[in-house]
């Protein structure tokens, strides 16, 4: 009420009509078709997808790294153990924003200019303007995509069938290899009969001016995305490592000894006995870390990665002046992402929880 009166006095209107207006600013990096002639709603979508992209990659990488470090911290090997704990102590205690700046500006300083970059893996160039690599060029990608989905459905039914057979007749199929076969054969068929075609586009050096170059063609991944992903991963992995360590330590010593005494190898002990129990301890706090990573990705604005905050709560807010509306939409969006992650992780936790008999 008060806000309404204040806004009226100051000549500010409230409404969401601006979302359909032309955005008239361009965005560096977008997963969908976009340019400034599109609407603010479209710009919102670009920002949202960029946020989801960096969060998704970050969550996967920090989970992998976190598990490795967490297990390493329990290693009886002094060197591994100490290195892992130094890593955790260090990356956890340096403020994240500082790490983002460090990786970004350190990378910019260290990386070669496009014309000096060496070819890596016969396909890519890592330069100050980003990573340029090969890009797939599809013909009739939609046919291929549908074939992939069909393959997945077939695999699902095959596995159900195989399970029933095993239960009823004790017959065992090599489930994994047959599934893999289906997954390869059906999509591959589309190349022969579906008119699907795949070729690769290579990045090529282009001269812009006497001393200024870039790459054209192929796929360009901006250094902002790389630095942000790196910083988020290294930072969040420390917390996940601690969760993993606590989880493993939380499983009784007796369990380990019992498992070893029935002749399981150490890696079998970890995989079959300890992990299933440890996961119950690890998942809830790790879910929190996933949420943190997603929220922390909004620090992107500092290094020009066009995430939701930079594009929508930044540029769009400035250009439209619709502060209240845009902050409300942005908050609701982050809330929805967080809720989705929580719901998914809860479901996963329930699924893997040991069923008490």
């Amino acid at each position: 009420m008060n806000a309404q009166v204040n806004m009226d006095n100051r000549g500010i209107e409230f409404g969401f009509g601006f979302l359909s207006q032309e955005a008239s600013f361009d965005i560096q990096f977008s997963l969908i078709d976009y340019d400034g002639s599109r609407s603010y709603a479209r710009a919102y979508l670009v920002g949202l997808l960029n946020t989801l992209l960096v969060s998704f990659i970050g969550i996967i990488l920090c989970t992998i790294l976190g598990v490795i470090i967490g297990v390493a911290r329990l290693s009886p090997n002094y060197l591994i153990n100490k290195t892992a704990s130094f890593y955790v102590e260090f990356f956890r205690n340096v403020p994240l924003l500082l790490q983002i700046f460090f990786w970004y500006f350190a990378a910019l300083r260290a990386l070669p200019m496009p014309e000096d970059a060496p070819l890596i893996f016969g396909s890519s160039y890592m330069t100050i303007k980003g990573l340029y690599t090969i890009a797939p060029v599809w013909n009739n990608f939609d046919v291929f995509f549908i074939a992939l989905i069909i393959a997945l459905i077939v695999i699902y039914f095959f596995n159900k069938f195989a399970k029933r057979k095993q239960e009823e007749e004790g017959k065992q199929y090599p489930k994994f290899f047959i599934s893999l076969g289906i997954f390869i054969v059906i999509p591959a068929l589309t190349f022969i009969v579906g008119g699907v075609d795949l070729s690769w586009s290579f990045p090529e050096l282009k001269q812009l001016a006497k001393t200024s170059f870039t790459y054209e063609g192929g796929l360009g991944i901006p250094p902002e995305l790389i630095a942000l992903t790196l910083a988020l991963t290294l930072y969040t992995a420390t917390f996940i490592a601690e969760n993993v360590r606590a989880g493993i330590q939380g499983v009784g010593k007796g369990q380990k000894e019992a498992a070893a005494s029935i002749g399981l190898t150490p890696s079998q002990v970890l995989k079959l006995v300890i992990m299933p129990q440890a996961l119950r301890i690890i998942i809830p706090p790790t879910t929190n870390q996933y949420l943190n990573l997603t929220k922390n990705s909004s620090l992107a604005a500092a290094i020009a990665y066009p995430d939701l905050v930079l594009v929508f709560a930044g540029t769009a807010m400035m250009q439209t002046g619709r502060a209240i509306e845009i902050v409300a939409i942005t908050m609701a969006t982050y809330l929805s992402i967080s809720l989705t992650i929580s719901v998914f992780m809860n479901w996963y936790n329930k699924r893997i929880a040991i069923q008490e008999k």
Partner: protein
Amino acid sequence: MFKYLKQLTSLVAMVAVLFTFSTESMAAKKSKTLKNTQKKGFVRCGVSQGLPGFSNADAAGNWTGVDVDVCRAVAAAVLGDANKVKFTPLSAKERFTALTSGEIDILSRNTTWTLSRDADIGLTFVGVNFYDGQGFMVRKSSGITSTSQFKDGISACTNIGTTTELNMRDFFNSKGISYTPVAFEKADEVVAAYDAGRCDTYTTDKSGLAAQRTKMSNPDEHIVLPETISKEPLGPVVRQGDSVWEDIVRWSLNTMIEAEEYGVTSANADMMKTSENPQIKRLVGAEGEMGAAFGLDNEWNLRIIKQVGNYGESYKRNIADTGILPDRGPNELWTKGGILYVPPSR
């Protein structure tokens, strides 16, 4: 019975107020911002996060610049002391919300006056203290000397939430050049990224380019291209809805410009009180009641000139002598071939 009594007393009180306070404090009454400023004892002024010549803090935290001087002028006028200003450094993105939310009372931060900003978002522009236009900076070694040499694939570093972002698109589109915008929230990061080689060009207001160049590791390795791609009239902004405050800020700026026109400087302002020219006398509070309409005393403008100086002094001190833009270009008085022209104080 009691109801009428109450109404009667408030009516009496109102009449009493009307009579006891002359028009002078009526203006102060009407302007909430003026009243609050006088109560607080300082002017709340939003500036940049460091743009030499316009608003920049030294190691001791002293702010200088032509944008800073507008706020100092207002402080001299309404509080009697040009130093009674609290500066809030703001990024381009934060600046308007800081003003509309009431965190600051004047925004004097190389801000372009445009229709949508003036009309749409609760702001009022009060004038222009620097006529500017958008330009491009490139590395000298690139051999580029004109924007006509720009090619597809060029990357351009700039700030978000600026007119720059919009003009850049118009410019590259009209030339049919595809480009990569790399837009940061803070100017320091823009400069650092361009300086490191992330972008082929750095684009913003030409004044900004000249000022930021002084911050680069090797200023001599960069040049500003001759083309100007937009109009960027920069000026102070106030919140919409307080017309007395708006007038105070507008006429504080006008006073500085008009003082230069009539040759009134910080050094000679006191002597000018005895000038023959009535226009000059009005500028130094020696004729007319030039402060009354704002709820200010008669020497408000004299204090501005004495404490802050006229526009020419401010320009020389901040922009010319620091080597940022020695040539005044369009920011010369209309009487000397420029376009600085303000309505008369009378």
